[in-house]
């Protein structure tokens, strides 16, 4: 007998901390999937997912049921990821001048990718695709991730990001166009097996 989100939230607001654990368990994979796709590595994905749920925990009492919980949850997630991405962009921009941190980060990424034991074929495909997604600008990436990886429809995305349907469409369209050729190359190289 699974309780609905709002029932769990009510329980939590009445002091039942267990209810919150249940909420985390229910959404952790979705959220983690999103954060991973947006940030491109497991370490950051984990941090962002954690951050998301902590923020949810702090603000859950303020949550009003005029939107669904999952919409609200995704809004928090995307906000956190967007902030992080922007922060990182600035960092890269500035550290490109000094160089060090960016190269270090790149080095870490390379290590992760090149570790042969960890990489199965599926994993390799995953990593390649992720590298393509990483190239998108944060705004497009957000819409792209929510659509392609989370399978949300335009209306849901518009609600989450608090933007118009038109904006969702144009961002998604640009993201798909940008990645069309590269993605298709992977397929043509037998990526799907």
């Amino acid at each position, binding site marked *: 007998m699974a309780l609905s989100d709002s029932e769990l939230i009510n329980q939590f607001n009445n002091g039942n901390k267990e209810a919150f654990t249940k909420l985390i368990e229910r959404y952790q994979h979705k959220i983690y*999937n999103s954060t991973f796709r947006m940030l491109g590595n497991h370490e950051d994905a984990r941090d962002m997912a954690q951050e998301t*749920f902590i923020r949810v925990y702090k603000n859950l009492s303020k949550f009003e049921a005029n939107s669904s919980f999952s919409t609200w949850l995704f809004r928090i997630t995307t906000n956190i990821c967007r902030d992080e991405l922007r922060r990182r962009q600035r960092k890269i921009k500035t550290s490109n001048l000094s160089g060090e941190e960016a190269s270090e980060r790149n080095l870490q990424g390379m290590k992760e990718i090149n570790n042969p034991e960890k990489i199965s074929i599926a994993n390799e495909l995953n990593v390649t*695709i992720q590298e393509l997604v990483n190239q998108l600008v944060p705004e497009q990436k957000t819409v792209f991730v929510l659509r*392609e990886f989370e399978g949300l429809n335009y209306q849901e995305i518009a609600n989450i990001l608090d933007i118009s349907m038109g904006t969702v469409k144009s961002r*998604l369209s640009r993201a798909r166009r940008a990645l069309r050729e590269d993605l298709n190359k992977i*397929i043509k190289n037998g*990526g799907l097996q």
Partner: protein
Amino acid sequence: MRHEKIKELLPLYIDNSLTVQEEELINNHLEDCNECQEELKEYQQNYQLLSSLEKEKAPIDLVDSIINKINQNVTEEKSYNDNNKKNILKRIKDLFILPVKVPTGIISLAAAILLMAITTLPANFLSDNDYLNKEFQAKDESRNYQIQNYNQSSQAIPETRMKITGSSQQENNELLTDSSDILSEQKIIKRGNLIIEVNKIDKVNNNIINLIDKYEGYLSNSRNWINQDKQKFYWFEIKIPADNFNKILGELSSQDYGQIISRSTSSQDVTEEYIDLDIRLTNLSSQEERYRKLLDKATEVEEILKIENELNRIRTEIERLQGRKKYLDNQISYSTITVEFHQPEPIGSSSPGIIKAIRNAINRMVAEFYQIIILIGTGIPYLLLFTVGYLIYKKRSSRN
């Protein structure tokens, strides 16, 4: 343009979320555009690829780590809030301490002194005044004492009264009624006080002596001095027979002598005390009489000694009372008038205003300095308490 529009819509076509018109537009276009057909196919493949990708699973320990972090956060936040509260207090405290950069001890010391100064100063002024008054009283008393001495040495005055009382002493037991008869008249001590401003002060001395002669009085005390402003003062204490009191006062008050600055008279009714004295004296003398008779009969040495002791005591007491009575008699029969003559205050006083002001300022400053020393002295116990309290507070807060 049309082609561009199609190209934009094409990536969205696969989601079935376009409007009817948009879909129609694309359908029409696709029929005769291979390139776009190709592209659409690619989009579809890409979408399939992406949505078929295995979803990333959250690490197993994510839930636990989140819960841990939340718990940690809660406690941190609590302590942060506490810190914040403390910070506010601290900031307020800093507000007092920082800009001065003086150990709080000194500030508190200064504050304590100031506080004490404020609280005790009016009282001090009062007590100063009291002190002055007392001084004046003391002077008065000393004057009186002088007068007394004078009176006692000059035998002439109280004699008549003495005779009256002396005779009354001889009637013994029934004297209670007698004395009240004798002393039924009011016994009143009159005093007058005059301050007169005169221009030709040198004449005053002679005038007063003449006046005293005229009214059969005597000069009991006199003093003359010159103050800082070269202002001359003459001060007289005159004893005048009580009957002439009003006459001489009237004459002195007349404009012949000068401008009256102040004039006051007072009278003290001592009738009761006088009667009391009389009764006690008669009782004592009858007691003395009896002891005398006993002494004549006494044979034992011890008895004689005892009686003589008693007699001695009674005699002293009698003399003491007689002295007091004499004094009262004198006061009653001779009224006291004090007159002070002084020159008008010089208008263009010898020192210019500013120098005088500065001199006054310095004088007052010195006086105040002593006052402050006294204040600090009186404040020391409170300061000690204060510092001890402060140290305890500091220690406790630093321990926390």
